[in-house]
C-alpha cells in the first residue's frame, strides 16, 4: 500500500540517485542533478497531458454515445478504446494546409503554443503526497496566471487565419476569457480566505484537518465549475468555436495535426480546471484506502465527466448573454460570497 | 385581421369584377374562380382582391405558348379566412414580355416574380429588385422558354461570380 502510494515519488528519487551517481562518475558538480530532474518532471507532465487528452477524448465520445442512445466508437481495440490513437495517427498523416492569406508563422506558433499553458499549470498541481513538481507558496496565483494564457494561442490562431469566422471567434475568446477571469478569481479568493494560504498543498492539508471546502463554499464551487467551462471554451460556452454560427470559429482554417494540437490542448485545459477544482474544493488527493494519486485521478474524472455531460445536454448560449450572465449574475454573486466569507471568517477568528 | 370586414366570397369577387372591369376581366368557362385578366387591369384587380380579404398570394408562374406567341402568367390568390383560391391569368406577348409588378400589393410577389423573370425573362415593371434568383448572375438566356437552346456543357473558365 505504502509502496503503491509512493511509487512515483520513489521513481523520482531513483532518478535523482541515478543522476547523482552519473555526475559523480563524470566528475561534475552534484547540483546539476536538480537541473536534470526538471527534465524528468517535464517528461512526467507531458505523459500526464498525453494520457488525459487521449483518454478523455475517447471517454467523451463514449459518454456522448451513451447520452445519445448510440454505441459510440466501438471498432478499434477492445470496445473501441483505441479510437483516439487511430485518430491521432490519421491527423498526423494528413496534409498540412495553411491558407494563402494566413500569417504562416503565427498560424504555426499558435498550434504549438496551445499545449504550453496547461503544461505550465500542471507543474504546480499536487497529484499526490509529495507529487508536486513545483511546490510554490503562491501555487494558486501561479495556476490562475498561466491558465489565463490559454486564450492567447487561440487568439493568435484566429488572428493568423485571415478568416472572418476565425476573427469573430478570436474576439469572443478574449471577451469571454477576460470576463470569466473575474468571478473565477473571486471563487478562489473565497477558498483562500477560509484556508488562509495560497499554497495548494497547504489548502489540501487544511481540508484534511477540517472539512472539504465544497461544504463551506458550495456557491463558489458551482460558480467555479461554470467559469471553468467558460475558460476552457467548452459548451455551453463554446462560442469561439460556435459550430452552428461560426462554422468552426477560430479553428476554421486549421486541419490535420495543427487542429489535433488544439483539440488535445482543450482536454488538457479541462483537466487542469478539474484538477484545480479537486484540489481547492474536494480535498485534493486525500482519501481512504486507495493511493493518493488514484484519488486525485478519480475526483478529476468525476468533474471531467460532469463537464462532458453538460456539453452534450445544453444548447449554446448567445454571445451577449454570456457576458451579461458573467457581469450581472456571477460577479455580484461572488462579491457577495466574498463579503459573507470575510465577515464569517473575521467573527470566528 | 379583417374581422370587421365582411369576407368576400367567390360570388362577390365575380360580381365586383364584372361591375368594375366589365370587358377587361372575364370568367373562364366551366370554372367559378378563374379569370382571364387584361394586363393593364392586373394591378387594380390585385388591389381589389387584397382589400376583399384575399391576402395570400400563393403562386405566380408562367406558361410559354410558343405557337400562339404568348406568355400566360398565372397568379393564384388565396384567402386566409375561408380557404378560397382565385386564379388570375394574364396573357402577354412574347415579343414584349412586360407586366406590372404586384410587389406593392403582396410582398410575397417579390421572390415569385424574380423566379418568373429568371426563368422566362418577363419584366415586371415596378419591381424593386429584379435579379436572377435560381440561376447565377452571369447566366444567359431564359431556361424555361420553349425556344431556349440548351447550352453546350463546356468549362467556362475560372471566374468569380460576385
Amino acid at each position, binding site marked *: 500500500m505504502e509502496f503503491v502510494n509512493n511509487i512515483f515519488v520513489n521513481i523520482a528519487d531513483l532518478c535523482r540517485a541515478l543522476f547523482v551517481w552519473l555526475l559523480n562518475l563524470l566528475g561534475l558538480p552534484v547540483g546539476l542533478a536538480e537541473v536534470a530532474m526538471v527534465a524528468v518532471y517535464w517528461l512526467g507532465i507531458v505523459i500526464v497531458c498525453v494520457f488525459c487528452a487521449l483518454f478523455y477524448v475517447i471517454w467523451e465520445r463514449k459518454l*456522448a454515445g451513451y*447520452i*445519445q*442512445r*448510440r454505441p459510440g466508437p466501438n471498432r478499434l481495440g477492445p470496445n473501441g478504446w483505441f479510437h483516439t490513437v487511430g485518430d491521432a495517427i490519421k491527423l498526423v498523416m494528413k496534409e498540412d494546409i495553411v491558407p494563402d492569406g494566413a500569417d504562416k508563422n503565427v498560424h504555426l506558433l499558435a498550434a504549438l503554443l496551445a499545449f504550453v499553458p496547461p503544461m505550465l499549470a500542471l507543474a504546480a498541481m499536487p497529484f499526490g503526497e509529495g507529487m508536486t513538481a513545483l511546490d510554490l507558496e503562491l501555487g494558486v496565483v501561479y495556476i490562475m496566471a498561466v491558465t489565463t494564457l490559454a486564450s492567447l494561442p487561440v487568439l493568435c490562431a484566429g488572428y493568423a487565419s485571415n478568416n*472572418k*469566422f476565425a476573427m*469573430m471567434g478570436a474576439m469572443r475568446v478574449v471577451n469571454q476569457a477576460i470576463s470569466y477571469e473575474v468571478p473565477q478569481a473571486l471563487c478562489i479568493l473565497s477558498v483562500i480566505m477560509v484556508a488562509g494560504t495560497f499554497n495548494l498543498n497547504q489548502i489540501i492539508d487544511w481540508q484534511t484537518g477540517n472539512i472539504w471546502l465544497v461544504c463551506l463554499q458550495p456557491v463558489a464551487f458551482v460558480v467555479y465549475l461554470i467559469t471553468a467551462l467558460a475558460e476552457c471554451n467548452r*459548451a*455551453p460556452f*463554446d462560442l469561439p468555436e*460556435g*459550430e*452552428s*454560427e*461560426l*462554422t468552426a470559429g477560430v479553428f476554421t482554417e486549421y486541419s490535420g495535426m495543427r487542429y489535433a494540437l488544439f483539440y488535445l490542448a482543450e482536454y488538457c485545459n479541462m483537466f487542469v480546471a478539474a484538477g484545480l477544482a479537486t484540489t481547492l474544493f474536494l480535498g485534493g488527493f486525500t482519501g481512504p484506502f486507495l493511493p493518493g494519486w488514484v484519488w486525485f485521478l478519480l475526483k478529476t474524472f468525476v468533474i471531467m465527466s460532469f463537464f462532458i455531460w453538460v456539453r*452534450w*445536454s*445544453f*444548447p*449554446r*448560449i*448567445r*454571445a*451577449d*448573454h454570456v457576458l451579461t450572465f458573467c457581469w450581472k449574475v456571477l460577479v455580484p454573486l461572488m462579491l457577495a460570497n466574498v463579503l459573507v466569507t470575510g465577515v464569517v471568517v473575521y467573527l470566528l477568528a | 385581421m379583417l374581422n370587421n370586414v365582411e369576407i368576400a366570397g367567390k360570388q362577390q369577387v365575380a360580381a365586383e369584377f364584372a361591375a368594375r372591369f366589365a370587358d377587361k376581366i372575364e370568367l373562364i368557362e366551366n370554372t367559378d374562380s378563374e379569370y382571364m385578366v387584361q394586363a393593364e387591369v392586373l394591378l387594380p384587380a390585385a388591389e381589389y382582391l387584397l382589400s376583399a380579404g384575399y*391576402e*395570400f*398570394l*400563393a*403562386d405566380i*408562374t408562367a*406558361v*410559354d405558348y410558343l405557337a400562339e406567341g404568348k406568355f*400566360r402568367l*398565372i397568379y*393564384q390568390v388565396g384567402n*386566409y379566412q*375561408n*380557404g*378560397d*383560391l382565385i*386564379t388570375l*391569368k394574364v396573357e402577354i406577348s412574347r415579343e414584349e414580355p412586360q407586366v406590372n409588378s404586384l410587389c406593392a400589393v*403582396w*410582398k*410575397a410577389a*417579390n*421572390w*415569385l416574380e424574380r*423566379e418568373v423573370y429568371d*426563368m422566362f425573362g418577363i419584366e415586371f415593371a415596378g419591381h424593386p429588385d429584379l435579379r*436572377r*434568383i*435560381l*440561376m*447565377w448572375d452571369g447566366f444567359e438566356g431564359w*431556361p*424555361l422558354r420553349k425556344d431556349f437552346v440548351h447550352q453546350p456543357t463546356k468549362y467556362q473558365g475560372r471566374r468569380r461570380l460576385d
Partner: protein
Amino acid sequence: MQNLNVNSERYTLNMGPQHPSTHGVLRIVADFDGETCVSADPQIGYLHRGMEKLLESRTYVQGMPYTDRLDYLAGVNNNLPYALAVEKLLGVEIPERASLLRMLSCEIMRLASYMVGIGIYIMDLGAVSAVFYPYQQREYALEVMSALCGARMTQGYIRFGGVQADWNEQCDAALQKLLDEFPPFLEMYHKLVDENEIFLHRTKGVGVVTAEQAKAYGLTGANLRASGVSYDLRRDAPYCLYDRFKFKVPVQQAGDCHARYVQRMEECEVIYQLIKDIYAALKETEGGEIMGKVPKVLRVPAGEAYAQTENPKGIMGCMVASDGKTNPLRVHFRRPSFDNIAIYSELMPGHKMADLVTIIASFDIVLGEIDA
C-alpha cells in the same frame, strides 16, 4: 452610454453555401456591425436541378419520382399535389381506400419531417444530443413507409389514380411500433427542451414575425400558424378525404422562434391523433380498390390545373399545363420553403449573429424544395 459613437467597420459575412447550419446550401450574404446583423440577403439556387424543365421532357408518369426530390424529407407529400393537379385534368375518380392510404402516408411522413425539423432546430442551437431522440421516432415512421412501399425517403408512393401498394401486415406492426413509441418520446422531449433556460433565452422574442408580415410574405404551414393566423388547408380547403376527420389546428400568437417550436410540438400531437383516426378508417375499407381507372398511356387533356396541399413545410402547390401530349407543357411547383425564406431579408437585420442561425432553424426549411 447608448449614444457612444464607436467607429466600427462593417463587414460582409457569407453564411453558406457551405455552412453547418444553413440546412444545405442556402447562402446568406449578411453585413455585420460587430455581432449585430445590419442587412441580410438570402442567395439560393445552389441546388437548382432544373426540376421544372426536366419534367417538361418526361412523360407524366416519369415525372412523378422527380417530385420526391423537392422536399426530400417528406417525399410522399410532394407526390400528392402533382398527382392531384394531373387528376384534375384527367377527371379520374380516386377510390376511397387509395385516398385514405395517401392521407395516411402523408401524415406519417409529415410526422417524420417534423421530427427532423424539431431535432435540427435544437441542434442548431448547440444541443447536439437533442437531435438523436426525434431521429429515432423518424426511423419508426420511415420503417412504416419502407414496409408499405419498399422505399424509405423518396418513396414515389402515389400514382395517378391511386397509390402504388396496398397496406399489409408488416405495415401494421411497424405502425404499431410508431404509435407505441411516440407519446412517451413527446413527453420526454418536452421535459428535455421546454424549460431549458438557455433555450428560452435564445428563442423568446427572437425573429418575431407579426401576423401582417406573415400574410404579406405568404408564409404558410407551421410558420404562419405560429404567427397567429389559423390557416390549414386540410381544414380550410380540404383535399383527399380530410373533410371526414375532425382535428384541432393549433395556433400561437407570439410569432417568435419559440412560438414556432411550440407550434411544431403541438402539431405533432395532432398528427399523431390524425394517423390513428385515418388508420382506423383505413381498416374499415379492407379489400377496397387502390387504383382508379387510368389508361396505360397517359394523354392528359389540354388545359391548366392547380392543386395545393398542406405539406410539412407549408402549402405546396402544383400547376400543370397540358397541350394534350404525353408529356406536360409546363409543370410548376409552389414550394413552401421558397416563399417562407423570402422574409429573411426583412427579419434578420437587428439580430445577433447567433440569432440568424436560430431564425433559419426555426423556419424548418429544405433546400431541395427552395431550389427545385
